């Protein structure tokens, strides 16, 4: 797997892992990069039963038809992006299989399967002040009464286009950002969160923290 070693995420040049902490402590905002998460863009007509059925079969995940919602399991889920568009998320390295399975299953059905894994990265943002940090640059109402766990939205954050996905009530958000904007957005988030106490954590810690919260 030589080339895997050689893969670089768009934030590697900031050497976040070197600055990462094992225990975020009192930090109001904890953030880190989720590298190489599999992302597959799926287009098709939700009114076309064949499409929905086949896609579900191939993904083992329902394609949400309720706007701005997410459906699926921990390591495989689909984000609603538009009336005929979804972003399918999978564990790192699974994009090839995902694309192949979908293309095979959808053969003969009008749909589009596109691997966008490399085009975007994910910044995970968590903590009691995560919401305020996002609100500094996002016009969406992120209040629990308006936006909550399992919700997603394509919107603007600072001057970058992003997809927001709220995973839990910590709250924890996954921010999907176009790779070329990742450097800007990270700096923007770190600057905005600094007043709340900001800690960087590496992916394993991120997962652990999330699990810990889940058990609470």
């Amino acid at each position: 797997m030589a080339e895997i070693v050689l893969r670089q995420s768009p934030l590697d040049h900031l050497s976040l892992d070197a600055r990462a902490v094992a225990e975020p402590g009192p930090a109001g905002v904890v953030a880190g990069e989720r590298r190489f998460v599999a992302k597959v863009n799926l287009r098709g007509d939700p009114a076309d039963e064949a499409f929905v059925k086949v896609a579900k079969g191939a993904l083992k995940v329902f394609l949400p038809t309720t706007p701005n919602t997410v459906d699926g399991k921990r390591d495989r889920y689909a984000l609603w992006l538009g009336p005929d568009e979804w972003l399918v998320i999978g564990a790192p390295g699974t994009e090839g299989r995902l694309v192949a399975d979908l293309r095979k299953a959808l053969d003969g059905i009008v749909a589009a399967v596109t691997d966008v894994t490399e085009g975007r990265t994910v910044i995970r943002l968590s903590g009691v002040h995560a919401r305020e940090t996002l609100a500094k640059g996002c016009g969406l109402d992120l209040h629990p009464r308006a936006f909550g766990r399992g919700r997603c939205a394509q919107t603007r954050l600072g001057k970058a286009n992003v997809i927001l996905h709220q995973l839990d009530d910590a709250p924890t958000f996954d921010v999907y950002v176009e790779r070329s904007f990742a450097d800007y957005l990270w700096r923007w988030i770190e600057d905005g969160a600094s007043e709340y106490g900001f800690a960087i954590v590496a992916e394993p810690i991120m997962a652990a923290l999330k699990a810990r919260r889940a058990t609470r």
Partner: protein
Amino acid sequence: MTAQSHRNPTGGRIDRARTLGFTFNGRYYEGHPGDTLASALLANGVHLVGRSFKYHRPRGIVGSGAEEPNALVQLGQGALTEPNVRATQAELHDGLAAASVNCWPGVRWDIGAINGLLGGLFPAGFYYKTFMWPARAWRAYEWFIRRAAGLGLAPREPDPERYDGTHAHCDVLVAGGGPAGLAAALAAGRAGGRVILADEQAEIGGSLLAGGGTIDGRPARAWLDDATAELAGMAEVRVLPRATVFGYYDHNYLGIAERLADHLPPAERAGRARQRVWKVRAGRVVLATGAIERPLVFDGNDRPGVMLATAAQAYANRWAVRVGDRAVVVTNNDSAYQTALDLSESGVAVALLADLRAEVPAALAQRLSRAGIEVAAGSAVVDAAGGTRVTSAEIRRLGADGTTLEGPARHVPCDVIAVSGGWSPAVHLFSQSGGRLRWDEAIAGFVPDISRQAEVSVGAARGTFDLAAALAEGARAGAAAAHAAGFGDGTATAPAANAREVIAPRPVWRVPSAGRGKAFVDIQNDVTAADIALAAREGYSAVEHLKRYTTTGMGTDQGKTSNVNALAILAHATGTAIPAVGTTTFRPPYTPVTFGALAGRTVGPLFDPARLTAMHPWHVQAGTRFEDVGQWKRPWYYPRGSETLHQAVARECRAVRTSLGIMDASTLGKIDIQGPDAAKLLDLVYTNAWGGLEVGRCRYGLMLKEDGMVFDDGVTARLGPQHFHMTTTTGGAARVMAWLEEWLQTERPHWRVYLTSVTTQWAVAAIAGPNARRLMAELCPNIALDAIDFPFMAWRDGTVAGIAARVFRVSFSGESAFEINVPSSQGMALWQALMTAGAKYDITPYGTEAMHVLRAEKGFVIVGQETDGTVTPGDLGMDWIVGKKKPDFVGRRGLARADCKRPDRKQLVGLLPQDPKEVLVEGAQIMADAAAPPPVPMEGHVTSSYWSATLSRSFALALLKGGRARHGQTVPVHAYGKTSWAQVTEPIFYDKEGEKLRG
């Protein structure tokens, strides 16, 4: 402490336990936490704070808050200095340093006061009538005028402080934390709604902080403390003190400016943002912005010591400050009676209260006489004598019609005149929201009439001055707003307060003059009643004309205390009713907002994103000079050692032509197109035909706008029968994507095509040069690379240096070239592998500049450089790409228009300067006649111009009238006074047959 000569030992909402030292005009004073600069100065007996805008008359503190027209100071020093701060809004902190503005050498002795003596020469708009001779001299006159104008000094250093901005949403936004606003917030909060309560002062409470009164049978201040405590305990209620709602925009979007650190000494501000702008989307808005007291317009009404009655009262009650030793109160309404009582209670001897009304409120009058204060009914102050401080007031009886004076003059010695000319509801935000105003005779002021947005005004802001009524209105509005958002039943119980019966004010807009003094309407801009009369005489009788001609209401206070007086005096002068004169529209902001706060964090490194490619870190390491292309950072050239741009580019070009070059082409736009009708879409948006393109091949395409002008270009590859990969220009990616979606969704909705942007999915390294294929052969075992199996304009999948890659055989350089697309995360790995393996060929990274030279040698155009939105494919000599047989494509009809068929259109040509060493200026114009005097007829311009290392001579591309028919001609090219001659040629200078790029 004793230094504070006019501070009472008890009372007020200040913390006497701590003493704060500050300086004003270099002199040291002391005050306490809770003080504003104004209250602290008055506590030290300082009234004289500045000089006026035009006549440089001595000026004092008039108000106690946002309405202050006079007391503007330069706050802080060095990089932290700030001009024109209202002393009444500047919270005192230890070490605060302030100075008067607009006076030299000092506020006591000011050279500009000379203007006062020449005052007669400076009526309203005098500058429109003079300074016209001689014509050229205006800049000289202007030099003096500019230095006379302006108030404070702009900082001279970059601002060291940070600012912040944020979005917020709520069911109910309450603007103003006075009694009505508090009642509204409580009602809405109790119902469970999401509430934001914003108040401009450091402490919530508004008029309750300064006034007395009882609520629910207890002192109002006690009720206030409970109310704020309750609000603080509500999870969904956010209370923002030091936060001014400054703007009310469309769709209930409001701006709030919050001051986070201005009240702290600079040392304690470190790390935190100084100010924050809240952008609030509110379900409902409750405007509880209160009312602003009006001054009376009488001679000498601008002398230091003449102040608004409420201000005098606030200084006494809230700050325990005696505004003077001996006061005269003059009013045309009831409110100032309480002021007189409070003043005398605070230890100010109140000589007399003059009430313009013949009929005075009996109960109040009695309380005054019990306190030993004379009430002079039907009387007014007609002149205030004094210099840097008022020394006496001239009292006269008013005639029945208010325009004449009766009886003898009384001169009452005093050092303070507290004035109340009635109240103007603060309708600024309501007016900004688009609401319409109505003139209310009863209160002699404008009140909200017709709403345009989901808001309601309550309390004094709508002319309800009675405490009980204001509380009730607030509570009702808060409950209703919450209910509208789905919380509570819409009802609320208002706290009880003792109501008062009110005798209507007597508006006397211009107190008759006893002499020849100046009576000021706009104190900041030195606009007098006489100026307004003059404007009316000269026909500037529309209220907007009045404002602009006299500048009344145009100062930093935007006329908060002066607008209504000015209107009324204008109405009087023109013999019209006030409603007929109308009012001016209130513009945001309510009070001035710091530029930095509006910019927030969008400054410095966060001003605009820099888009980076996967190989960017390598370029940085290599010492690349970057070029900004849109938001992208693209390598411009790679200087070695001390190389100049020219030297580096020559070397990079030579490398590509003779051996091997490598370029980061990742920024090109890439769109994945899938669906049964994909080819149809390409046929529509490109000028050429796409149906016949085989899988495995690619083709160059031009996109036009409907007017036939070139809009973008790029190479598109067929990945499958229903699957294409389109590339666009770097700058055009987003534009083209939106363009395609627009055609699909709005014009061809039945077509089954899906578009996905994959611009950043792929990192692209382009290798070009005679050795490109050799290098590929080493790194790419699984693609047959010879020209037959992998011809020009084809693509193949395979691996390069072990990385899964899609390779395009396209060339923008004219050399045999391969564009290697790999997943972005492996772009760096690919680049490094190519650099290492290519070393034997001295592989040379080249930037956009070299790329431009190489493509120009081949006559390849760059959209945006050879084109500017006025160029057709024909102009570029690219008719070959315009499908003659195609029934339709975007731009086809546009091309058929008369003007697009003119034979003398500007057409792309090559230029060879007569001096082969001379590189023409890009943008240089081609003259029709080198000898012609200006205006010289021009026939085109140089679009691209370079030194060619390959041709070892200069060359250029140009657009030239009828150029294609003029090959061989020599034309004069002009730029910056220099005319050069160049020969017109075919726009291709290298490998005309294209053997190299096909080979």
